[in-house]
């Protein structure tokens, strides 16, 4: 299991007022005595608010906001792969290599990405712009091969298209 990483900024993470309003909306989705159910959505929100990953301080803060023991939040955060427990680039590029994508030549997509970004799986670029990850099936199999960058899917890929997509990122 991955160890939790401390934040390097030294600034304790705090939700903005707008984010706190979103937390209140999240709480309302669950029965008042079932606040624990909010932990996953609040973790998702925290990851968005705090730069794409969750430091140990961020997890402690989520525990405080939701009202759970920190260890329970660590359990959840380490169980689900979407919670990044170390820093990721501005663009987290996740390429699917599971069966349908593999049948549709995801190997070529992976090569194109690795060449373009000069990264192997699990690596981030020095400028903090990109992280490249291999990911399991993302459920867009009839449009294989595909990848995800942050919240968006890119489908029916070719190596040339991959290069274009990367170039067009702001």
């Amino acid at each position, binding site marked *: 299991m991955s160890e939790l990483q401390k934040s390097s900024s030294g600034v304790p993470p705090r939700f903005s007022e707008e984010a706190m309003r979103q937390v209140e909306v999240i709480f309302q*989705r*669950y*029965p008042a005595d*079932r606040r*624990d*159910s*909010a*932990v*996953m*959505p609040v*973790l*998702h929100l925290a990851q968005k608010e705090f730069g794409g990953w969750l430091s140990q301080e961020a997890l402690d803060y989520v525990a405080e906001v*939701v009202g*759970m023991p920190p260890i*329970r939040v660590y*359990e*959840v955060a380490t*169980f*689900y*792969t*979407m*919670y990044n427990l170390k820093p990721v680039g501005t663009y987290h590029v996740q390429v699917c*290599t*599971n*069966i*349908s994508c*593999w*049948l*549709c030549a995801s190997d070529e997509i992976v090569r194109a990405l690795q060449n373009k970004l000069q990264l192997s799986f699990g690596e981030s670029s020095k400028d903090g712009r990109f992280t490249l990850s291999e990911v*399991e*099936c*993302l*459920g*867009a*199999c*009839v*449009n*294989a091969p595909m990848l*995800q960058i942050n*919240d*968006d*899917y890119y489908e029916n890929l070719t190596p040339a298209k991959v290069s274009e997509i990367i170039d067009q990122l702001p």
Partner: protein
Amino acid sequence: MTKIVYKHIHLENSHTLAVYKSVGGYQALEKALTLSGDDIIDEVKRSGIRGRGGAGFPAGLKWSFIPKDDRAKYLVCNADEGEPGTCKDRDILRYVPHQLIEGMIIAGYAVRAERGYIYIRGEFYREAERLQAAIDEAYAAGYLGDNVMGRGIRFDLAVHRGGGAYVCGEETGLIESLEGKKGQPRLKPPFPANIGLYGGPTVINNVETLTSVPDIIMNGGAWYSSLGVDKSTGTKVFAVSGHVNKPGNYEVELGIPLKVLLEEYAGGVRGGWDNLKGVIPGGASSPVFTKTVCETITMDYDAIGKAGSMLGSGAVIVMDRSVCIVRAIARLSRFYRHESCGQCSPCREGTGWLSQIMQRIEQGKGVRGDIDLLLSVAGNIQGKTICALGDAAAMPVVGAIRAFREEFEYHVEHGRCMVA
């Protein structure tokens, strides 16, 4: 051919309330609210619809298991779509969310659940946004909330995003996750119908199942059961991926010959029918069919079951003759190893073994006895775990050895692939 869940997805702005209402949306709810809950359950039973998520359990029967006590009851929609090859629910979520919502309000009313959740896989971020927008519209229009259509009935509905764990597609893993915990499945019994979410009676249905409900109520269970074939009634979306000329999600009546699905809907096998090697008929965990089986098999629960596989989620993965079956299965074994939640030893350890052995055979480092070792490990997983993930990991390996044993043997004996 009759379509149900996809009949409106090609309309412009099909995801909006205005367009959904213009094609008769929420009329089934209006009708349902004039019936009793038991009448609705009977209608769904008559339809014969079976769970479209993979297990194929009759939905009406599932609903009828909800006890008539005064505990709070819950309705959960499983939108965790994660079985490799499967992407049918995504198009419902992003194109016709109101049809799903309408189905859920009807189901909630039938089983007297006042609260519903849609557990959607976390990666479907845009789909979750669409869904939330539709829920907001439905609240504003009075279809959701404490006075559904002015009838004094309460139904609240919320979206809950997962975190990227395949095992949460298992219904009790999903419940654990929804309660804010690791998604480790529960021992059954008790079944969710008695003790589910927050300890209350809970119905969990797949997206496609619930999205079929409005048409069942509108046109009657008998109408629905006239579609498809005996014991596999109605329509089903097949997500056809891999080596076909027109991969896509196709909604057809159950019982369609696989060959027709591939040749007439999916544009044919790449390089022609004779270039077909095999088909995984129901998602990654279902045993692969050889071309010989594909010639005659029909796509219904019983026919596929009798042929030794599963209709599952309806993910049809097509492989042409260029595919190394050992490599394909090795990739799947790696997936199951990654996704095992670690709770049960046979699965936690067994999926690791399966993946390692598959990998060494694939890399030409297999040793004599490895094939039997795979079968032995698989046998020690199957039926010995809390949830079906262990079986799901074992079945593709056992099925591939059964169908393509000579390829496995060639890999072991020659240290390389006979295909590529």
